[in-house]
């Protein structure tokens, strides 16, 4: 049985002038110790999916089973108990730390809430701070506002790890960091995973980072998963035209590297009135009438790779 099973997750937001379908019909599973990455462009619903796993806020529909407990239908007490096994690192680490509180309080908060004694909590806080590469003696009494982005990221990781979760949702943990420190954080996450057998849901738009860290990848577009599969398969033989365009758009740090493939045309559609049928069809080089009429469902291509495209694997020329 998978550690995390997500089925038909959906979430809407009411905004001025309408409703945004931030997540529609998203399903995936994550096994123990495994890393699943969610990739896709800004606003495609990655964060919403990740946060729904933790119930902030709860999804509108769909089920989330963590370690066999259905978080959406279990009695609140059991759900809360089960939820402790899942922790999150937020997209903007700095804003996820209360700037007015000391690091030791921040990290200990989860423990205090779950009733761990002050003494025991302090020990564990020191331990975990050391584990993320911070010196408790130096940082414990300072406030979050005094730290750099990378350090804040570490504090956030410490706060999550102190709860000894079995799954960690990381929402763009390196996006706001300089390249020179990105690696430090990624290394830290990998170390944690190895050491504690942690499963990761890793959200990112940076495919290069995703490639180096994940086991499986789910590509999202306008609230839906359009492709999911083994990281190697996806990168070497992307099934969805969007995945392909994404991979082609990533600039190479090499002046001699020729640009690959044609650039996508068109603008990102507004999530408030997404195109009918396949949401990608407005920018898709191979869109046809069928794409407008019919929403493609995920179908398996082989080797666990699933794609939601009527014409997966066909080249743009065909």
């Amino acid at each position, binding site marked *: 049985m998978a550690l995390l099973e997500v089925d038909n997750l959906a979430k809407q937001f009411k905004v001025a002038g309408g409703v945004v379908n931030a997540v529609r019909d998203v399903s995936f599973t994550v096994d123990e110790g495994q890393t699943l990455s969610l990739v896709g462009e800004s606003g495609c619903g990655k964060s919403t999916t990740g946060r729904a796993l933790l119930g902030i806020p709860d999804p509108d529909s769909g089920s989330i089973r963590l370690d066999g407990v259905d978080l959406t239908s279990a009695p609140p007490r059991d759900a809360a108990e089960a939820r402790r096994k899942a922790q*999150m690192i937020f997209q903007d680490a700095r804003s*996820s730390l209360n700037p007015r509180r000391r690091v030791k309080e921040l990290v200990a908060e989860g423990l205090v809430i779950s009733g761990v004694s002050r003494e025991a909590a302090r020990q564990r806080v020191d331990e975990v701070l050391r584990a993320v590469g911070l010196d408790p003696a130096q940082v414990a009494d300072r406030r979050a506002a005094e730290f750099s982005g990378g350090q804040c990221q570490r504090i956030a990781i410490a706060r999550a790890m102190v709860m000894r979760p079995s799954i960690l949702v990381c929402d763009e943990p390196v996006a706001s960091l300089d390249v020179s420190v990105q690696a430090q954080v990624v290394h830290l996450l990998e170390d944690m995973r190895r050491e504690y057998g942690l499963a990761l849901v890793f959200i990112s738009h940076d495919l290069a980072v995703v490639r180096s860290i994940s086991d499986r990848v789910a590509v999202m577009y306008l609230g839906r998963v359009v492709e999911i599969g083994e990281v190697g398969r996806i990168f070497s033989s992307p099934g969805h035209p969007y995945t392909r365009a994404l991979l082609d758009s990533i600039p190479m740090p090499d002046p001699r590297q020729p640009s690959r493939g044609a650039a996508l045309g068109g603008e990102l559609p507004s999530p408030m009135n997404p195109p009918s049928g396949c949401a990608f069809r407005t920018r898709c080089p191979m869109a046809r009438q069928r794409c407008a009429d019919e929403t493609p469902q995920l179908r398996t291509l082989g080797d666990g790779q699933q794609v939601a495209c009527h014409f997966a694997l066909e080249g743009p020329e065909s």
Partner: protein
Amino acid sequence: MTAVAEVPAAPETERSRPSPRPHRGRLAYRLALGWIVLLAVLAATAGLIAPFDPTAPAGPARLAPFSDAGHLLGTDSIGRDVLSRLLYGIRISVAVGVGATLIAVTAGVLVGLLAAYYRGWVAAAVNVGTDTVLSFPPLLVLLALAAVLNPGVPALILSLGLLFTPPFARLTRSAALSQMELDYIAAARSLGAGAGRIIFFELLPNSIRPVISYSVVVVALVIVIEGSLSFLGVGIPPPAPSWGSMIASAKDHIALAPYLMAPPALMLVLTVLAFNTAGDHLRNRFSGSAQ
């Protein structure tokens, strides 16, 4: 009645301005702070340093001009020493200013936080409540409450506190609402924190800054309003020497002894100026470093 509630604009709309001119207004702020501290000291020691009893006539001198017969600031129409009344007046004016503000801040912050946290009908109810208070003619509230509670310092503090609750509620709510968007609230929730914990440990400390700087300004506002009420004859009953009532009674004698108005008016203006300056400074400092 002058102002109730110049509702401050949403807090910290300014994007992070990394300290344009950090030393701006330092001197004015220090002077203002100095004045406020001086007032506090004078209020505390009024009993020791005031040369005369503020409610008892000091000899036969009446409407004596400055520095006459040992009365540094002269005597009022009843023959009471103006300096002593001024000193004791600090207690009343500042007690009303600070007391009403404390009530307003406490109630306003609590209500504002609840509205920001629960939204939905709680927020709607808070909205209706604050609008109700705001759309009441303030004079009526003051007069009615004074009539019900017997006019005096406590009644005044209570009704001014009530009148100033809505602006604080709104200010707090808008500050807290912008905090609610931030992920540390979500983080606390995902760690299992309950409403009380989030409201008091997370929201409160992060929404309080604009409230603090505004409350300093409100102290000044309340002091002026107390003066206006005494002026209209509906403030604190005599013989309590509030600055407003001193100005009002000086106005009765403006033709005979125009100088009588100067000391309390000056005191009032300086104090209001000091509180305003301090409030401005705090706001600038907070918006400069609030990231």
